[in-house]
């Protein structure tokens, strides 16, 4: 089955590995992710004021282009894109008068009819593939690794656009267990990583990364798994920088869930893209015998 997907800016630059692994994993599961034509930036953060309709134009234009391609479903990989597209979609469905204004403004585009549903890739894996089916395809189970799933904010909040329970999500730990890994629970899994404060308040974000990771360390976790490119950067890069702030602290590797699916499905090493990480993610996998050490190139 061909599935339309919306990449967004970061997947084309600093999170190429997330895109590549998701495409290859989908292929291995017998489907195909097709990039939508003529997409634009989603705006990353949804407008929260009642009168700021202009900020909904960018996400709405993407939804219109999904309709133009004759589809009623679009898959997103980035959490922030997913959240923004979902929030705009919800806003225009709840307030038809806003949709009228937005449609009237965009004179070069067709009118949005409101038929599109936005899905996160994780939702697609859970609801359309099923973790039980995924489990059957695992060739290289992640035995012996203790992983802390980290959800962050954008997958879960606001409640109306959440992909799981906003306070007690299980989607990532269910997924990881189906891949053969052991998961550790922790209360920081739904706390913000620091988000865009990483640009101007580096130290605050480093302290957040330390707080999240040190709890995982206390519980014996070997790694963190997440889905958002900004959380990856904050926990991985700013977490590494936290080593200078906190004596004796050592950052553990951070993976995208798609990378671990690719590893456990036994896909080729060339798709993993571990070279875009700061803390080397291959060492742990080699130590646990999941990756053969001689075949890795980073």
């Amino acid at each position: 089955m061909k599935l339309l997907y919306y990449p967004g800016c970061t997947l084309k630059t600093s999170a190429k590995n997330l895109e590549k692994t998701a495409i290859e994993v989908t292929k291995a599961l017998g489907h195909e992710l097709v990039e939508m034509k003529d997409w634009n930036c989603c705006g990353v953060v949804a407008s929260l004021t009642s009168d700021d309709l202009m900020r909904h134009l960018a996400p709405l234009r993407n939804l219109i282009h999904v309709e133009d391609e004759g589809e009623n479903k679009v898959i997103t990989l980035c959490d922030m894109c997913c959240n923004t597209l979902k929030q705009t979609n919800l806003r225009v469905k709840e307030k038809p008068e806003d949709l009228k204004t937005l449609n009237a403004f965009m004179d070069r585009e067709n009118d949005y009819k409101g038929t599109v549903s936005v899905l996160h890739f994780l939702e697609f894996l859970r609801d359309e593939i099923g973790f039980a089916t995924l489990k059957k395809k695992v060739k290289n189970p992640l035995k012996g690794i203790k992983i802390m799933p980290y959800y962050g904010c954008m997958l879960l909040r606001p409640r109306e656009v959440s992909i799981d329970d906003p306070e007690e999500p299980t989607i990532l730990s269910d997924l990881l267990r189906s891949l053969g890994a052991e998961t550790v629970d922790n209360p920081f899994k739904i706390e913000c990583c620091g988000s865009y404060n990483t640009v101007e308040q580096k130290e605050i974000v480093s302290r957040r990364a330390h707080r999240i990771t040190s709890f995982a360390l206390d519980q014996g976790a070997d790694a963190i798994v997440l889905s958002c490119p900004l959380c990856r950067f904050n926990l991985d890069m700013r977490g590494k920088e936290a080593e200078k702030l906190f004596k004796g602290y050592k950052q553990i590797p951070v993976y995208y869930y798609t990378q671990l699916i690719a590893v456990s499905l036994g896909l080729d090493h060339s798709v993993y893209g571990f070279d875009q990480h700061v803390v080397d993610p291959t060492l742990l996998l080699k130590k646990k015998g999941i990756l053969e050490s001689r075949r890795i190139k980073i």
Partner: protein
Amino acid sequence: MKKKIEKNKKFSKIVFKKGGLAKEVEDLCGENLFGCYQCGTCSAGCPFVDDMDLAPDEVIRYVVLDRSEVLSSKTIWLCSSCFTCAERCPRDINITKIMEALRQIILRKKIDQSNPIKISKKERESIPQLAFVSLFRKNVG
């Protein structure tokens, strides 16, 4: 109430009539600030509260009491809209939207909070794109 925040001179041109601040915030965010009973749940769950000069529940109280020095607070710029407070508020007040409204009051007077030129080349190359887009959307009018 103890004085906690330094008034920023940049904001002296933002003036309100009596009760005008709360009205402006309510108009922008559509939330009922007077419904807040100061339980502090928002502040207890806020991941940035340690670095804030006013806790989120104090921000609401300042607005309700018409104290416009709340606009000089660091809190409104530290909030990264993670919606934890909005999710947990027992009075169903979306505090995240209140923070956005306060930011918008300042930004709509053409007072930017971030300057793209000040970001170093090294950071421009290493930080993911979505961080910049969201920072400029939140901190630049």
